[in-house]
């Protein structure tokens, strides 16, 4: 808070106010020469974000700036580089995603001895000719040239940059030959080779890098990995794995094998040194047995999304649950009984995803026995919100969500695409710490809004595709903390109702087809959820969900014919087609 009113910040603000104010101080050469580099870097950054920076203005910083980050800036071209080449103390230059940078533009920075970090990622016009310019920067320690036009021949040349400790060659056609010539880089700690043409022959060379701690081989044809003594971070996603790090003493901490295929499943992971392993991602892999988990005593993050895991293997997870903080079981075959096995063994678990699993309401009582939970994802499941008891009517059944009241730290709850109806949401109104709630169902009505209005700390409320009415929105008294409301697909609401709600509650950002704010960004950070599912799988369960609705369920839209429905209000075309699709299901 205080930072906004300290004199340095106030001066920065005043200096970057407009082009005129810049013109008032840019001629003060003597002051600019004395400007300490942290101030110069900060000033440059602010000028850049306010779009006041242009090539010739760069010149005034040539005695002071040490760090330049203009990534993603389309206007950065050879002229900018010509000015940057004159910077005497420049230590770090980031021009990633600046598409106008080409090889000849890099000529300007040849021989810059101060430069230690250079990021040219995705500058597609940079090729081997550009590499020849870079070779003259002798002290370069970190170089990122992922997804540029550099070829295997160009990569070979990098061998002369002896100080390199970080080398990102992602998406380049690096082959075994070029990797072979890089083995003189003894200081290398971080090597990114995703999507390269490295084979097992090339991977054998990796043991020549004594300090290598961070290795990315995703999407390569490497199947065997030699004994790498200092490896801490390994990514072999989408590879076919035969054996990795057999009997190795490597202090591996993070292992990502998402989408990997295993030739010899039993051995591949059993021989790992798991003493330090805290992060394992084997999502979408074809693993069937999970005995390897039993060795991972210190694991904190485990992602088993869409693995062939059933209730019989849950025991393996329970054994190592002592330190577990996040667990993703989305898309597995784990049922309520499996969740029951976990309960009581995961005292530190904060994030649990059970999206797209065959769990039902019985699982909720087990989940309530996991005391540290902050985020629970139950979307796309058969949860109804009622505990089914033999011989009783659903109306008389106890509400299952009541059990979650035990979770005193629960902040986020995802119930999208479940069968939870209005009455079942009643227990949520007493949740003290709940901040984010995600609901998406065609069977929710105004009464849900009423229940949710009494959650004291609610920040974000997503209630999509519901049959909310204008009256319901008018009478909704949002909690004082509410900042975001996603009403996408609530088709009964009119433009007037939305805009009057926005007027009365200006602090709340409303998302709806009629909302006047920026168009809905489906991939925005506020969109759910922990289980970012593939579109294909969402579609799959969506259809399943609709067909499996109980016979007593009446969709409000059935009261109207399709024509009458469309006549009710003019809908944007994409939305109308959506509803047509839904109606077709019911017809």
């Amino acid at each position, binding site marked *: 808070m205080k930072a906004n009113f300290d*004199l340095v910040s106030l*001066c*920065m603000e*005043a200096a970057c106010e407009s082009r*005129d104010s810049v013109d*008032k101080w840019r001629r003060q050469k003597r002051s600019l020469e004395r400007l300490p580099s942290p101030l110069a870097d900060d000033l440059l950054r602010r000028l850049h974000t306010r779009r006041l920076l242009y090539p010739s203005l760069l010149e005034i910083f040539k005695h002071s700036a040490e760090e330049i980050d203009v990534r993603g800036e389309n206007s950065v071209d050879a002229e900018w580089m010509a000015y940057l080449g004159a910077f005497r103390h420049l230590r770090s230059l980031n021009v990633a995603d600046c598409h106008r940078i080409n090889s000849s533009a890099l000529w300007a920075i040849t021989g810059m001895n101060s430069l230690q970090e250079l990021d040219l990622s995705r500058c597609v016009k940079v090729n081997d000719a550009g590499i020849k310019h870079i070779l003259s920067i002798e002290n370069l320690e970190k170089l990122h040239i992922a997804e540029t036009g550099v070829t295997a021949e160009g990569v070979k040349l990098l061998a002369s940059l002896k100080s390199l400790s970080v080398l990102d060659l992602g998406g380049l056609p690096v082959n075994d030959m070029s990797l072979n010539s890089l083995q003189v880089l003894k200081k290398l700690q971080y090597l990114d080779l995703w999507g390269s043409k490295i084979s097992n022959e090339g991977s054998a060379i990796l043991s020549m890098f004594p300090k290598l701690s961070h290795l990315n081989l995703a999407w390569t044809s490497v199947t065997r990995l030699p004994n790498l003594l200092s490896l801490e971070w390994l990514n072999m996603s989408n590879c076919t794995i035969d054996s990795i790090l057999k009997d190795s003493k490597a202090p591996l901490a993070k292992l990502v094998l998402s989408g990997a295929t295993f030739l010899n499943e039993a051995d591949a992971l059993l021989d790992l040194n798991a003493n330090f392993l805290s992060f394992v991602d084997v999502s979408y892999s074809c693993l069937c047995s999970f005995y390897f988990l039993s060795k991972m005593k210190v694991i904190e993050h485990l992602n088993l999304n869409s693995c062939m895991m059933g209730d019989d293997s849950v025991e393996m997870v329970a054994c190592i649950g002592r330190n577990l903080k996040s667990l993703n079981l989305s898309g597995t075959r784990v049922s309520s009984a499996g969740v029951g096995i976990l309960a009581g063994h995961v005292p530190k678990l904060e994030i649990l995803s059970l999206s797209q699993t065959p769990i039902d309401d019985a699982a909720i009582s087990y989940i309530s026995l996991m005391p540290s939970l902050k985020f629970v994802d139950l979307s796309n499941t058969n949860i109804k919100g009622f505990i089914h008891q033999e011989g009783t009517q659903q109306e008389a059944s106890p509400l299952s969500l009541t059990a979650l009241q035990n979770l005193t730290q629960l902040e986020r709850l995802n119930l999208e695409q479940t069968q939870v109806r209005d009455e079942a949401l009643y227990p949520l109104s007493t949740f003290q710490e709940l901040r984010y709630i995600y609901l998406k169902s065609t069977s929710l009505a105004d009464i849900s809004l009423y229940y949710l209005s009494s959650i004291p700390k609610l920040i974000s409320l997503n209630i999509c595709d519901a049959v909310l009415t204008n009256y319901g929105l008018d009478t909704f008294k949002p909690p004082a903390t509410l900042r975001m409301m996603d009403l996408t697909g609530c088709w009964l609401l009119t433009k007037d109702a939305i805009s009057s709600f926005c007027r009365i509650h200006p602090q709340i950002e409303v998302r709806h087809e009629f909302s006047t704010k920026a168009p809905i960004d489906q991939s925005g950070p506020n969109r759910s959820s922990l289980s970012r599912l593939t579109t294909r799988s969402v579609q799959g369960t969506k259809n399943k969900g609709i067909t499996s609705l109980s016979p007593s369920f009446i969709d409000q839209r059935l009261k109207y014919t399709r024509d009458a429905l469309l006549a009710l209000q003019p809908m944007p075309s994409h939305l109308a087609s959506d509803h047509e699709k839904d109606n077709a299901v019911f017809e």
Partner: protein
Amino acid sequence: MKKEDTVKLISAEGFEFVVDKEAAMVSQTIHNMLTSPGSFAERQHGEVTFPEISTTILEKICQYFYWHLQFASVLIYMSFLTLCCSGKETEFPIEPELTLELMMAANYLHT
């Protein structure tokens, strides 16, 4: 105004600004000079000389000290309440010509 409650700030050109100790203490650097144990000359005489800071800039800094005492805490509180405040009288005006020098002095004084 008692002598013990004030402090004399001297600019590069030798101009002297007498300000309340409380105001001068807005600067962490001056605060340290005046309160640190041991016998700093600054502490004994209640005088601090800044051979690097010109008179114009030091005057502006003294104005800032008093502005900070009067408004900053209120502004921080107001921004906490997410109230918007656009009143000109609460802003601290900085002439663009002074920004660089003032920025460096402020950086040195930790204000």
